[in-house]
């Protein structure tokens, strides 16, 4: 149990570290083309080989991690930043028109296939990393709003919330002081899971050419570029694919582990 958490955290840390490191140093300049050395298999000079322009794949993956993490992080931020207050508000005014509007709005967003809408947004506003972030972020809002509403509603019936109401505290203050701290562990867990989904979504959008635009490297586009050369240069597809796989796996393991660690009920069950 604990092992999975540590493994997941280490995997995630490796990719986060690679992204941070890429600001300071990468083995090769990723904008410098080196056609003489194109499509090299892994070697001492290029540990993960080179692509069809002779760029170093390790460097591209490091810089690509930056894109993936930034997109996913901001998208989760949008989702939490808007979804959590909406969920808290819906729970505080449960059964009112406000709750109804928020809940039906959630249902509405959930009813659309998220990737298609993301494609639509980028098709209308032009493909870019920023538009990908907005598209992914919008679909994170109802996830957090629903999660928080459900958890907060059960907390609102607790006697300590009743006691706070007797002390004359208003809905905003109670939500901030009593509800939010008690749903924080759920948010951390859901946050890591949405983060991994965000990375997947970004890779998907980039794969169809609607994410970050060249020359900014992105894992998804690296996969797309390698598609035609997969029969004679499998390393070009393998390494970005592995990067996506391992990051998502790491984040999911970390999310699961954190849930077990932060949920007192599960913690007790394990003892």
């Amino acid at each position, binding site marked *: 149990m604990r092992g999975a958490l540590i493994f997941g955290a280490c995997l995630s840390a490796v990719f986060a570290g690679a992204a941070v490191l890429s600001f300071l140093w990468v083995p090769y300049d990723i904008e410098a083309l080196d056609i003489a050395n194109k499509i090299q298999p892994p070697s001492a000079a290029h540990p993960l080989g080179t692509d069809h322009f002779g760029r170093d794949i390790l460097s591209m993956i490091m810089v690509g991690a930056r894109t993936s993490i930034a997109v996913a992080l901001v998208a989760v931020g949008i989702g939490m930043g808007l979804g959590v207050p909406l969920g808290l508000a819906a729970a505080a005014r449960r059964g009112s028109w406000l709750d109804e509007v928020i809940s039906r709005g959630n249902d509405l967003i959930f009813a659309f296939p998220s990737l298609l809408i993301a494609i639509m947004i980028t098709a209308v506003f032009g493909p870019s990393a920023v538009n990908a972030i907005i598209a992914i972020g919008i679909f994170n809002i109802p996830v957090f709003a629903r999660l928080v509403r459900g958890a907060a509603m059960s907390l609102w019936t*607790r*006697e*300590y919330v*009743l006691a706070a109401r*007797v*002390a*004359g505290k208003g809905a905003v203050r109670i939500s901030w*002081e009593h509800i939010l*701290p008690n749903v924080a562990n759920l948010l951390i867990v859901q946050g890591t899971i949405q983060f991994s989904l965000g990375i997947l979504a970004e890779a998907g959008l980039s794969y169809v050419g609607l994410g970050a635009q060249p020359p900014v490297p992105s894992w998804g586009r690296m996969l797309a570029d390698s598609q035609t050369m997969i029969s004679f240069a499998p390393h070009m597809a393998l390494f970005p694919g592995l990067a996506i796989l391992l990051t998502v796996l790491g984040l999911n393991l970390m999310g699961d582990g954190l849930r077990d660690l932060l949920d007192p009920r599960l913690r007790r069950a394990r003892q």
Partner: protein
Amino acid sequence: MSLLEIEGLGLRIGNVTVLEEVTFAVGAGEIVGVIGESGSGKSMTALSVMQLLPQGASCTGRITLAGRDVLAMKERTLCRVRGKEVGMVFQEPMTALNPLQTIGDQVAETVLIHERVGRAEAMSRAAEALARVELPQDRFPLGRYPHELSGGQRQRVGIAMAIALRPSLLIADEPTTALDVTTQAEVLRLLKRLVQEDGMGLMLISHDLGVVAGMADRIVIMRQGRVMEEGRFGALSHPYSLKLVEASDHVPEREGQAGEAPLLEVRDVVREYATPRQGWLGKPGVFRAVDGVSFDVRRGENLGLVGESGCGKSTLTRAILGLEEVQGGTIRLDGQPVFVGHRPNRDVRRRMQVVFQDPYGSFNPRHKVGRLVAEPFHLLDDAPTGEAREAAVAEALESVGLKAEDAGKYIHEFSGGQRQRIAIARALIIRPELIILDEAVSALDVQVRAQILDLLAGLSDRLGLTYLFISHDLSVVRNVTDRVLVMQDGRIVEQGGTEEVFTRPRHAYTRQLIAAVPKLPRSA
């Protein structure tokens, strides 16, 4: 030789010793009451007999059931014993039944597991068992689901499951704790009748001496995993047993200087809830939880409000506290209305506070005690800050018998009784005049309950507090209040001086309630 013999039973779970040298016996046709406070090991003794212990548990000593050694049995043999020879009834009728299965299926399951019979035969046996627990087929067909039944009826289904195969031993673990007092009386009568009819042995586990005293042939008193004493109720002599008996009928000493002037006036209060609409176009129905209730609470008095679950007493509490607006009538504290123009009146709110039932649920687990206790300061416009605030918290904690340093601890570091003291400290900190005690002692063990009642009486005398004491527990209300209101279906059906109401109840419902209260025989 008795039906069930427990000799020198010891139980360890991990490194913790749960039971030590537990010895007692249950004979056929005999009712043995097992009494103890929480953590005394009474439920673990029952689970040892069933061998349904948690992982990592190891038993020593001997348990024999009709001469056979239970501890030596293999799991397969135990499966044949459980349900067939030993039946068990659990505390919580809400969770002991599977909500997705009909009651007939659930009772028939016991039969199908243990006997090679067809489904039709099993169902007819289930019908018979349900009829024996007074759920006749014409009114409670086998196809009913648990959610269609009341708590007491569900508990009867639980009993039917336990007795379907006419076991020789029935273990009932707090079978009536979750039930109202009148339902409790019916279920206890039913258990007694079944014991007589079948000649079963009954091991009746309870924290409530009153429940067991009137019914059991013998009583086993447990404490901290040991048997303190065993004997007839009237013949108990161990100091701990006597302390328990005293605590369960404890009358705190009060000076009781109730004035005549009303502090809280409740007039013709009506509180309605909308029920779900019938179909898409149907109108929502209306449920009147509180229906024209009027009463006064006089300054300095202890007023009791009794009634069974669903009678509207919690709704009334919330209305008095200004948490929910009423649809009709007025509530005034010292002449000032609780609600002014759809907004709660802060001037009134700061003069009353509340203590809730659940010592575990009434505190935010993520705040320290100092912050929790200081919460009502929010009501004051000139709330003390800094050192003055700390001093006020310290004073409140000390006035309920805790230490000033406790302000720096988290709530999970305290026991149930201590938490209830902290809840009282929280209520006291803004020096209210009226404190509403909403089942404030119902979840506590009898000895702790007695201490809290003494504390409340002392505080009332010292600070001139007025209490509205809301409870389903009539014996406690009788011991601590000056006047009492009886509530049924949203109405006050009777009110008057406590002794007057208890000795000469006028309303039929009051009489029924009082008759249902399990009493300790006075000879003890």
